[in-house]
């Protein structure tokens, strides 16, 4: 596996420095830490997210006006540690409280919870939401629940918008939980990804195979099947999402996993939009691009968010970050 890197152990450090050198007007790095915070600290409730690296532009690229205030970068596909998250919380807190946006992975939840305990011990108001939008995974008492995937970007967007408008911590949390309750995602891959330090792919697919229901760390999905056309794949993913709950008016996010050409993402969206329209589901807004990636994995996820006026207002509000502007 070829990679454009210097040393597998330095990828996160060099990437973070590269981001800051490119976008000093948006972000700065806390000295000695793998934490990016807004260059212009807001006087408002702060949002902190993060997770393993390899999902770029999440989460550092979503730090800025109307979205995140801090992003903590772990090693590739590995949750960041509590001390790093704690430093992020301390740095962004403006005295109005901090909301942690956590993707539902065992490690992420544990490390963010430990950091929240540390922050509370220092008298910082902290609360958390856990995103679990992945319909590929069974949500039962026998699993740790659904994974948090691309829908997290919409949580950042809408909860971030309300924080920017001056909502208090309880209100920002309520909005974030409303997004989580109404967002569903399904992903698939046609080529695996390679964690730099591992040096070999996390899974293998034959030339004519796809993995349906893949997670954003290349973790195995729900089943493996022969590759189909983009339209057939989109049909199958939508079927799974639409079976999970009712949708009337939605925001659509067609998210690339890093290795799929934007051309192909638009091909998928072309059909997604047609199918939703045929089913009488109104498409209020569509977002297409690489937002929650899995290094160089080829594949995509489809996210639907059921909207109401409150969520529309947050979705339409101004956002100005490295990777998401509107």
């Amino acid at each position, binding site marked *: 596996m070829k990679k454009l890197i210097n040393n597998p152990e330095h990828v996160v450090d060099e990437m973070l420095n590269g981001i800051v050198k490119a976008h000093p007007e948006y972000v700065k790095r806390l000295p000695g830490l793998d934490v990016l915070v807004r260059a212009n600290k807001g006087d408002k409730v702060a949002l902190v997210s993060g997770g393993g690296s390899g999902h770029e532009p999440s989460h550092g690229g979503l730090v800025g006006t109307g979205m995140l205030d801090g992003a903590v970068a772990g090693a590739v596909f*590995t949750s960041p540690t509590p001390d790093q998250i704690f430093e992020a919380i301390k740095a962004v807190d403006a005295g109005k409280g901090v909301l942690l946006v956590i993707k539902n*992975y*065992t490690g992420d939840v544990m490390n963010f919870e430990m950091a929240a305990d540390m922050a509370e011990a220092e008298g910082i108001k902290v609360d958390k939401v856990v995103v679990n939008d992945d319909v590929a995974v069974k949500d039962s008492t026998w699993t740790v629940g659904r994974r948090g995937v691309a829908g997290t970007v919409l949580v950042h967007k809408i909860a971030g918008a309300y924080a920017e408008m001056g909502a208090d911590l309880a209100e920002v949390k309520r909005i974030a939980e409303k997004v989580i309750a109404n967002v569903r995602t399904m992903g698939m891959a046609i080529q695996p990804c390679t964690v730099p330090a*591992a040096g070999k792919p996390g899974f293998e697919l034959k030339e004519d195979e796809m993995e349906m229901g893949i997670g954003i760390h290349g973790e195995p999905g729900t089943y493996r099947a022969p590759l189909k056309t983009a339209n057939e794949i989109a049909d199958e993913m939508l079927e799974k999402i639409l079976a999970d709950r009712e949708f009337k008016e939605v925001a659509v996010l067609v998210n690339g996993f890093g290795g799929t050409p934007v051309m192909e993402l638009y091909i998928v969206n072309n059909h997604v939009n047609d199918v939703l329209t045929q089913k009488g589901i109104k498409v209020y807004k569509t977002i297409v691009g690489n937002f929650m990636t899995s290094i160089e994995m080829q594949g995509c996820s489809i996210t639907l968010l059921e909207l109401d006026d409150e969520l529309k207002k947050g979705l339409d509000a101004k956002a100005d970050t490295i990777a998401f502007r509107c």
Partner: protein
Amino acid sequence: MITKATVIAVIKDIAARIDQDWQYLTDLDQAIGDGDHGINLHRGFTTVLQKLPEDKDIGTILKTVGMTLVSTVGGASGPIYGTAFMKMGMKLAGKEEMTREELLAALDEAVAGIKQRGHAVRGEKTILDALEPAIEALKATGSWDEAVKAAEEGVEYTKTIIATKGRASYLGERSIGHQDPGATSVTLMIKACAAAAK
């Protein structure tokens, strides 16, 4: 009595065993998780060796190991192993040597800490499936060799069950047939204890 020197030797041996086997642990994790278990533990124990406060008491040494793992390993293993070592350290605070009973009490604390942090119980294809039987065997027989045997049987047992905790739980029935990487890494640690007991 178990001396501080023995505790230090065990920690160094654990680091050496992980240095030896980190690729194997990562391969196991690639099959049912996200393929970083060995990489992360290797990073953690490499830092542990640099930070080991050998002139301090057993409690401080174990707490330092735990805090170092929490701040360097990440993932789920960081909080879980970190909590286990920190709990043992708190139970053994100030001690330059310990009795067998004190060690067993500290191990019970470690297990309680893991259960609390991971919201896990035995039978969910986790570290507990090797660790708990090992401690039980140790209590019953007094033999670390029996503890290793029980841990290895626990690892074999994890091949037969569905994961319901951690990232492997997303696989459902597809996790059957694969051994748990966490149960495997804790068995390495129990082997280091057994080697030191000889």
